[in-house]
């Protein structure tokens, strides 16, 4: 399934019943060097738009929101020792967590890659 995007600069990619979530390339470049990621506990329930993780750059901490509601089934342990992976490959190896979706139809309202790109253009 194609990746979808939120106005808060998260991306989400569904694969069967489980969706992978991370922050976008744009977000990582705006944040600068990432030094720490706080990931949710496995089993935690998240609501759409609710705080799910925290990403810290050198200068500040930022909240990462869940693009859709669900239950956390996996987190990217690699980010513990190598938070810079988010800078290197934000939309691939730098994924944050995986969700079992509560309401998959919530994905439909999110932006496509094209729409997200357009959206970025409006943010001046």
């Amino acid at each position, binding site marked *: 399934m194609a990746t979808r995007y939120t106005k808060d600069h998260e991306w989400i990619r569904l694969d069967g019943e489980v969706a992978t979530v991370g922050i976008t390339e744009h977000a990582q470049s705006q944040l*600068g060097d990432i030094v720490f990621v706080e990931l949710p506990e496995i089993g935690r329930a998240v609501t759409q738009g609710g705080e799910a993780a925290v990403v810290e750059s050198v200068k*500040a901490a930022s909240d990462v929101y869940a693009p859709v509601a669900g239950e956390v089934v996996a987190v990217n342990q690699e980010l513990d020792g190598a938070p810079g992976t988010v800078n290197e490959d934000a939309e691939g190896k730098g994924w944050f967590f995986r969700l079992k979706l509560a309401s998959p139809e919530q994905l439909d309202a999110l932006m496509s890659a094209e729409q997200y790109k357009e959206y970025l253009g409006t943010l001046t």
Partner: protein
Amino acid sequence: MSDVQTIDSPATTAPLKQTPLYSLHVSRGARMVPFAGYEMPVQYPDGILAEHNHVRAAAGLFDVSHMGQAFLVGADHETAARALEVLVPGDIVGLAPGRQRYTQLLDDNGGILDDLMVTRSADPMEDGVLFLVVNAATKEADYAHIAVRLPAGIKLLRADHRALLAVQGPTAVQAVGRHCPEAVGLPFMGAITVRFDGIDCHISRSGYTGEDGYEISCKATRVRAIAERLLSEPSVKLIGLGARDSLRLEAGLCLYGHDIDTTTSPVEAALSWSIGKRRREEGGFPGAERVQRELREGATRRRVGIKPDSRAPAREGTEIKSADGAIIGKITSGGFGPTVNGPVSMGYVAREFAEPGTKVDLIVRDKPMPATVVTLPFVPHRYVR
């Protein structure tokens, strides 16, 4: 996610000032941000971590022209020095020619109005001239504070037409030395008036990173030439304020308005080393009663290093609690230390908890995170004495 800036947002508040190197920063891809009323480079394209590491491995060039430079002028050194000693606890009378000293402007409660560097000229023709460098955010208030407290015959002359650069790191001596051979032999905290490739300037061997290096003051009209010559040195890179902050934090150095302010005395701030012995005994500076009492009895709180046990940074404002849940202090500077490769912070704790090795809890996102009180600095200083 929260707080993602879109494109670097233009300033929407009062118009920001620019240093003489503004266009150089922009041409080198700097991300400019407002700081102390100026548009300043927070980082360049390589990013804060790379810039920080470069300073400790080689040499970084910082534009610090936003800081305040001024001359305090009296008939001779002793007269000018005594006038300044009315305002600061440092030993200024005893400052030798060509030497620089760190001190603070104190208020009547012994609180810190600003910290500053004071230099006595090496040149006997400039006897009676003290060169002051103060913080950008407080310079107007500092000048006003000083000016109304000067006796007749002493003048404070602002040097707004001057720029200031810092070159910091182990290769700074070679990089600067190629353009100014006299700088090579300067001792730590020594200063000279000299020429850098024929350009008049005033150089001191000091800085704000814990590394060997120099600060170079020159006319604003000549700073671009000096900066470009330094940048032509292979080991020198432009460094932004982001890395300047992480470097000084690892070095355990205070940032005014954060680690020191009008509520902190120099004793609480662990800056007693900067109070001259004669000054401790004689007083004669604002808040001397409090300072002398704290020197005798110990201050009720103390600035210390605090190292989180996990990898999560603890930022300014974070509450510090003892093991039994009492609030015992607050973090005043915190972030990530690239050289240490982990979170580092400084803050104040009640004196019973100031012993290195003391375990404390930091309340981050409403959860207690274990941390340990440690001695400062996090990264040993490498001054060339």
